[in-house]
């Protein structure tokens, strides 16, 4: 493996990293710092950094390195999570307008950040609408303001630091990730590894001066495209960003021609974190999986350097370097074949937020009268009234009526709109054990399909858990894709014992996660209730059922809405008991035609 090809260059450009003995290949921290440096050299071309890190000293260190590298006077603006359109894009400055009697515009954060860095706080939770507004300015380099009677276009060229404090599945929206060249994860970096950096402002200035004359040739572009393709990175932006990163890296090292080292750095920093698959044409997996630690020193380095410049060989070399830099966690997933094809994490998918009259997050204002519990937005009402003041005053004077200090009319009324999350996720926990499979599994599948169609109409998410044999398995994590759900269901195998407790546990785990994120889970358990496999995989009816009851009680304790559908041919008391312990609605399938089933779920959902 040749992942370390870039090391000598880094060392050559600046004094060696000050960390004592153990610096071998590009340690994650060094690459994280390199990302900050490259982004500073070429802010517009690389877009910025998606910084996955919990708040703490490591993140602080990284940010202070980044900001120390910025030329003096570089603006830095922070976008808070629930930023209003007025603050983000700009609008009418109400106070100044009223004071001066002429329209005064207020600049938004995006305009203020022109030529500098825009920091997105808690970016994993930013609403898609906000991301879209930021991206529009980011892509076009200007803010098109059409608000509060103002229309103007103002330059807004900035790079972004998206602070991703997500845990587990939470993460940045793909609309953001796609635009940022560098995806840096600081969570795995220990505190003492986060040392200061040796690049300084002069290095940056020199590199910036050189950047314009750095060229990348066609074979090199082809290489980056080929590597992206081999790693299953669909978006073309990734390849474009990689080109910019390679050029910035060359400039940093005082070169005007991009070399293999620069390509390797681009592959490592830009492409590796985006991989969704390992290259297919790989020779049969090496006896041992590639070491997940990219720090391993490298003996093959020289050999790699000698490789011919023929594109094919070059591509393979860069691919190797890139592969070696795939983060350990992601690598494990890829190897397990658990590929999230389009890593479209449904973050910021507060998309399914509903408008609500009076609670939830503020979501803009609307003209209208405050009634039915809607709140008058005083500031916005004043804003709407402001331009009319002089006209109305003169009207009243002419009519001989007394003049009020402020003339507000119903037409000015603005009400606040709020949104609240009411997205629900229906989790189907389906018994695929032998006893069920024998009689009712096919029917259960049919029923689930019907329910799915209904979920589709309501734009709910669905998840699918199946249990049977020794344990339970998530067949489908929460998704809105009905087609996937249907496919999963069709391929659902039947047979084996009934590890009921394991099934409930897994469904509950998903439900709990959804609840924590503010969603509404609905657990639908389809079983015949005849548990016969305990949590530890051993047989035994009594114990298995006891455990299932215990799990059921936990579901009730967590206040998860649930529904038990008994799919045994002749309903058994177990099913009813289970439902009772779960605090769930009980529905025996024999009496339930599709319609009744649907109605029951709907009733539960409400």
């Amino acid at each position, binding site marked *: 493996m040749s992942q370390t090809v870039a090391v000598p260059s880094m060392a050559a450009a600046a004094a060696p990293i000050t960390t004592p003995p153990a610096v071998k290949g590009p340690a994650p921290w060094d690459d994280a710092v390199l990302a900050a440096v490259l982004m500073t050299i070429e802010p517009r071309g690389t877009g910025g950094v998606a910084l996955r890190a919990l708040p703490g000293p490591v993140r602080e260190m990284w940010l202070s390195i980044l900001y120390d590298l910025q030329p003096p006077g570089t603006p830095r603006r922070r976008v808070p999570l629930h930023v209003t359109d007025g603050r983000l894009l700009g609008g009418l400055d109400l106070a100044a307008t009223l004071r001066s*009697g002429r329209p005064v515009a207020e600049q938004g954060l995006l305009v203020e950040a022109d030529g500098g860095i825009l920091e997105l706080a808690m970016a994993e939770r930013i609403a*898609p609408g906000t991301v879209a*507004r930021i991206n529009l300015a980011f892509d076009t380099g200007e803010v098109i*303001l059409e*608000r*509060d009677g103002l229309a103007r276009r103002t330059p807004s060229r900035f790079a972004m630091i998206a602070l991703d404090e997500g845990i587990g599945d939470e993460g940045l929206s793909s609309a953001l990730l796609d635009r940022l060249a560098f995806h840096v994860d600081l969570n795995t970096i220990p505190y003492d590894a986060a040392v200061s950096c040796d690049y300084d402002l002069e290095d940056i200035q020199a590199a910036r001066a050189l950047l314009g004359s750095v060229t990348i040739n066609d074979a090199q572009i082809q290489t980056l*495209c080929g590597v992206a393709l081999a790693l299953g990175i*669909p978006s073309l932006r990734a390849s474009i960003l990689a080109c910019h990163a390679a050029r910035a890296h060359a400039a940093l090292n005082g070169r005007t021609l991009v070399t293999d080292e620069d390509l390797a750095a681009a592959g490592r920093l830009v492409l590796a974190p985006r991989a969704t698959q390992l290259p297919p044409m790989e020779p049969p997996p090496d006896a041992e999986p590639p070491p997940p630690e990219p720090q391993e020193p490298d003996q093959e380095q020289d050999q790699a350097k000698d490789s011919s410049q023929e594109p094919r060989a070059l591509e393979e070399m860069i691919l190797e370097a890139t592969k070696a830099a795939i983060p350990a966690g992601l690598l494990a997933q890829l190897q397990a074949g658990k590929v999230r094809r389009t890593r479209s994490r449904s973050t910021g998918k507060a998309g399914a937020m509903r408008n609500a009259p009076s609670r939830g997050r503020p979501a803009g204002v609307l003209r209208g009268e405050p009634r039915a519990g809607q709140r008058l937005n005083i500031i916005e009402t004043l804003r709407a009234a402001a331009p009319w003041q*002089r006209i109305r005053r003169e009207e009243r004077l002419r009519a001989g009526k007394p003049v009020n200090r402020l003339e507000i009319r119903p037409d000015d009324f603005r009400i606040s709109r709020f949104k609240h999350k009411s997205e629900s996720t229906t989790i189907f926990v389906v018994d695929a054990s032998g006893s069920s499979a024998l009689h009712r599994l096919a029917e259960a599948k049919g029923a689930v399909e019907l329910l799915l169609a209904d979920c589709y109409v309501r734009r709910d998410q669905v998840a699918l858990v199946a249990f049977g044999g020794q344990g339970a398995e998530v067949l489908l994590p929460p998704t809105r894709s009905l087609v996937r759900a*249907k496919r999963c269901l069709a391929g659902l195998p039947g047979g084996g014992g009934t590890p009921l407790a394991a099934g409930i546990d897994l469904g509950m785990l998903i439900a709990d996660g959804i609840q924590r994120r503010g969603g509404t889970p609905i657990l639908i358990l389809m079983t015949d209730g005849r548990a016969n496999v305990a949590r530890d995989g051993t047989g035994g009816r009594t114990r298995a059922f006891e455990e299932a009851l215990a799990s059921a009680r936990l579901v009730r304790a967590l206040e998860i809405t649930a529904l038990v559908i008994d799919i045994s041919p002749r309903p058994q008391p177990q099913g009813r008991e289970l439902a009772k312990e779960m605090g769930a609605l009980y529905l025996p399938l024999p009496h339930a035609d599709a319609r009744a089933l649907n109605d029951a779920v709907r009733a539960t959902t409400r």
Partner: protein
Amino acid sequence: MPIPFPFSAIVGQDEMKRSLLMAAVDPSIGGVLVFGDRGTGKSTAIRGLAALLPKMRAVDCPYHCDPDASDDYLCDECRAKKAKNGTLKSHQIPVPVVDLPLGATEDRVIGALDLERALTKGEKAFEPGLLARAHRGFLYIDEVNLLEDHLVDALLDVAASGQNIVEREGLSIRHPARFVLVGSGNPEEGELRPQLQDRFGLSVEVKTPTDLAVRMQVVRLRDEFERDPEAFVAKWKAKDTKISRQIQKARKLLPEVEVPDQTLEETSKLCIRLGTDGLRGELTVIRAARALAALEGSRQVKIAHVKTVAVSALRHRLRRDPLDESSSTNRVERAIKEQFGE
């Protein structure tokens, strides 16, 4: 204003480019919806198109009225002038391509009180909004699926009637607002309201190319553009001009393009086969096919034209079957095969 990437330098994405050109030739097709993967050049294509649209003749009024339009499509001012003088003075202006940014407020979209004049002079005057500015041109909404509902409603109303009506505290304005609606978005961010989807004449799906050579070409050109936009645009100027002329010629030819009865019949059959609602689908297929024929310099619509445009004109008009796994694109393609053979 930032320099747009030249339209002619966009690699591949033929369906998108073709649809935009057809809409430029015949605005009555009813707009284009471009939905698809990230980074496929959706906005790039639309901004590029703006740069090469042939100029149009317009009256010097806030709505840049068409001097040859009938009274219904003139603003009050122009109508009065025309009644008095018999003709309207006009000059050449670029076709407006107006951005409707997310976060725009309603007053700026439909027009409202002129702030400056109201505050400084105490005058009640109407300041036209984006809809007025987009009259006779294009109104572009990026991330159209994230547009706020109340704006969508206002937009639909105007798009349907071709008139914008503002009534507010003594301001009573009615002005023509006929524009080609172009929307783009990514389905991952949420789907488009069906009512809005239906208002677009053509619906285009864009996918990231998977062919290495194509991808490389895209990246190479993009890189070249970003390094020196002016030089790049100059280099592609000739090709852009060629497309511009093609649009101009096609517009001239359009009234002469005939649709044989047989083609009409076959198109109807195709729509019946697909079970599309209403006549709008059929009408759009025919209009788009005519525009395509005109672009190709043909005076007659051929079955090949219908086959080419049918998917874009119909894929968003199929009734939804949540359990049918095949995409609407496949369903239309299948129906085309069944109707016209290979």
